[in-house]
């Protein structure tokens, strides 16, 4: 098709994708998608997992070669067949998993692959360092160019990755869930940088599952559903309820309406949990935390980065070994888990916050992943497995949890994020737990799956399971918890009842400004 002569107005899109179709094997996942990004706009790409967002983004980033349709960059059609070509076209992706070399310095990373060098090819470290310092200043990153990337917090690494994209003259930056591992104050500084980029005239594609971020950032929102564009709108024209309807095609129940009051019987009585810092022995990440968990209640755990919420759960699960010391009673009997195995045996199960790194075995089938923590139950003398019983139990559970799987024998990595998370939940449920420790159960999954998980949680609580819940999404925390325990630097800063808890109180306590405000016990 002959291309129209480039127009010269400033509102020419940086990138225009037209009629993009993409198939994997015989399955078409994008059915003719149009998508444009203008200079100086933050364009949020929203949609449930499996809607085709990642596929569309990967086409832009040059990951996929075979697709039909047309991609124009700066008004001219470009073939982005490899990631290198995309980078050369000025398109940079800030990945969920960062692509820096942790064992190299900040400056080395900034110039990786495009080192400044002298006449005989020697690397000009002085010039690199000087330029790196300027770039870091520009990003308001207070780190030394000589520092090792591995020593930086995740948030700085992410900003560093943005800096690197800018040194390569990126015109379009793609952010794929950049805040999933960040804390509130880090998010604020990331957003400030994104606003800077917008002012410079860069185009930004932003993918997120967090409602709040969409409305804080977006100039325009495009919603994908099942590989089709549902529509593009400005945030004013698309209120949250409508946005969700676009995404899922149905209305979601908001919040949690609880009728029955939690029974008063205490399941887990934690006298004291202390966890040492992994490298600095004398520092304590969790410092003498105590609480009581009653049957059929959801105890929310809140805290900013470094507050020790996740470490507290891992300590209760026996996953931290000698770093942690736990004094607790479970159902009235002493509970001191030495390792995860002994916690599982006592009916205490942990859902980890990183299903990829420490949750799933990707090549194992759905069945084998679900049953992994309960194999003793399915095996007889000598460890011989009762595979039919295992299969039927897992099959019943997957139906109960509404896990959508092509087959119970499919490798779990072929599932969407939400379904993978449900597989992990199923694993935690199968041993019939008394206490569930849920660390970010809804991280990185779509709205529909989130609603499913919270609905399921209601059922478990009604069945008498006690839950400790960590979530970085305040709305979810407030809606789901019967009580909220706020940690600040490893200590309990406040305990709030469901009625008393507000967003402001939780945040204030988490930041150490509580001074007793709203604390009840």
């Amino acid at each position: 098709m002959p291309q129209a002569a480039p127009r010269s107005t400033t509102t020419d899109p940086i990138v225009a994708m037209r009629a993009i179709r993409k198939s994997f094997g015989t399955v078409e996942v994008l059915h003719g998608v149009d998508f444009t990004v203008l200079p100086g706009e933050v364009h949020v790409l929203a949609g449930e997992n499996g809607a085709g967002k990642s596929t569309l983004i990967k086409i832009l980033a040059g990951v996929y070669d075979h697709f039909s349709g047309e991609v124009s960059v700066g008004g001219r059609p470009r073939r982005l067949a490899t990631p290198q070509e995309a980078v050369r076209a000025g398109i940079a992706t800030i990945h969920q998993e960062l692509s820096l070399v942790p064992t190299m310095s900040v400056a080395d990373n900034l110039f990786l692959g495009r080192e400044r060098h002298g006449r005989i090819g020697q690397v000009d470290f002085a010039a690199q360092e000087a330029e790196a310092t300027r770039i870091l200043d520009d990003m308001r990153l207070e780190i030394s160019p000589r520092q090792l990337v591995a020593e930086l917090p995740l948030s700085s690494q992410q900003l560093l990755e943005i800096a690197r994209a800018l040194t390569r003259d990126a015109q379009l930056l793609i952010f794929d869930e950049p805040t999933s591992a960040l804390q509130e104050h880090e998010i604020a500084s990331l957003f400030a940088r994104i606003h800077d980029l917008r002012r410079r005239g860069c185009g930004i594609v932003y993918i997120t599952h967090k409602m709040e971020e969409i409305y804080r950032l977006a100039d325009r929102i495009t919603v994908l559903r099942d590989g089709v564009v549902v529509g593009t709108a400005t945030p004013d024209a698309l209120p949250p309820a409508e946005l969700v309807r676009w995404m899922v095609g149905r209305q979601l129940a908001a919040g949690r309406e609880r009728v029955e009051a939690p029974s008063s019987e205490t399941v887990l009585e934690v006298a004291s949990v202390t966890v040492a810092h992994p490298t600095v022995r004398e520092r304590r990440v969790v410092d003498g935390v105590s609480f009581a968990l009653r049957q059929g209640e959801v105890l929310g755990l809140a805290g900013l980065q470094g507050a020790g919420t996740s470490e507290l759960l891992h300590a209760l699960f026996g996953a931290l070994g000698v770093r942690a010391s736990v004094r607790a009673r479970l159902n009235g009997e002493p509970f001191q888990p030495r390792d995860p195995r002994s916690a599982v045996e006592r009916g205490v199960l942990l859902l980890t916050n990183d299903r990829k790194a420490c949750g799933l075995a990707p090549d194992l089938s759905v069945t084998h992943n679900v049953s992994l923590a309960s194999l003793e139950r399915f095996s007889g003398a000598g460890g011989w497995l009762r595979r039919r019983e295992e299969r039927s139990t897992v099959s019943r559970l997957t139906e109960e949890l509404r896990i959508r799987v092509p087959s119970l024998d499919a490798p779990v990595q072929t599932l969407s994020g939400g379904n993978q998370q449900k597989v992990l939940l199923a694993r935690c449920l199968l041993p019939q737990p008394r206490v569930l420790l849920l660390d970010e159960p809804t991280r990185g999954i779509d709205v529909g799956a989130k609603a499913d998980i919270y609905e399921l949680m209601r059922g478990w609580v009604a069945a008498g399971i006690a839950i400790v819940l960590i979530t970085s999404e305040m709305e979810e925390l407030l809606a789901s918890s019967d009580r909220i325990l706020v940690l600040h630097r490893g200590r309990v800063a406040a305990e709030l009842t469901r009625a008393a808890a507000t967003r402001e109180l939780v945040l204030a306590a988490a930041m150490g400004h509580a001074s007793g405000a709203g604390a009840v016990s």
Partner: protein
Amino acid sequence: MTAGRNTLQRWGATPVARALLALLFMLAIGCMFNAEGSFFRWSVHRDMLRQVSTFGILACGMTVVIITAGIDLSVSSILALAAVCFAWLTLPASWPAALAIPVVLTVGLALGSLSGALVARMRLQPFIVTLAMMVFARGLAKVISGGRKITNYVTDPDGTAHVVDLPRAFGTIDSRVLGGNLSIVTIVFLACVLATWVLLSRLRAGRYLYAVGGNQEAARLAGVPIRRTLILAYAYSGLLSAVAGICQAAQETQGDPETGMGYELDAIAMVVIGGTTLSGGKGSVVLTLIGVLTIGYLQKILSLNAAPEATRLMLTGAIIICAVLFQRGRGT
């Protein structure tokens, strides 16, 4: 109709189908270069089976270790140590074989467990641990044998020498049944395949092996006994290495401390050609069985056609790469 074709297509993409295709390809090569029809003689296939059996036994243990994302370089040395121990116990020490065999198996099991314990408890890399064990076990074999081959020509303490009868076990292990068509060593190999299959796909421990190899941290947090599982893998490999060592001693009618040099690489090649990946968490002993046969036929075809050793080595190297590329398939 289309559903049927889809099923076939899906089956064609499974690792077992790919491994079988590679084997069929090798057989087709054999039919083409049939060395004036000798490839079509049953005796050729029978001999091939007998010749790969010792390697196959090692490959079964190797499969289990590789599934845990580890590697066992010590199999060849433990094989030699077992061969030496077996020969020493039955010939100069003139123990009955029925007593010597369990002792030798225990030695293999113990050394394997030691490797496993170092990997699991000290968190050392399997490559390093089993490399050290490879060197150590070879040295131990030389100490026990005094650096010489142990044969039925026994030197007494007073310096006189005499010949002792080879125990019946040697002949039995090296014999053939079913009218000379199936050797005992091959039966031992097939029994090892069966045992490994039961371990990997019917026992709880097998599930743990896959989980540890697939994602060790995930397995730990699911309450899988990581250390026990890793120790089991290396102990099993050590045990099978000892089994292979006894077979080797019987076939060579001696305990040679230098025997089996480099066998670990053949065993790894057989596992990998079958399609079990070194990254762990994937694979099966059925794949390894097919891999063993593929390499066995390759060697047989090359020797039937009187290919010079240099050519054989180069071709084997090239074919390992081709087979692994083919196994991986396109688009992954």
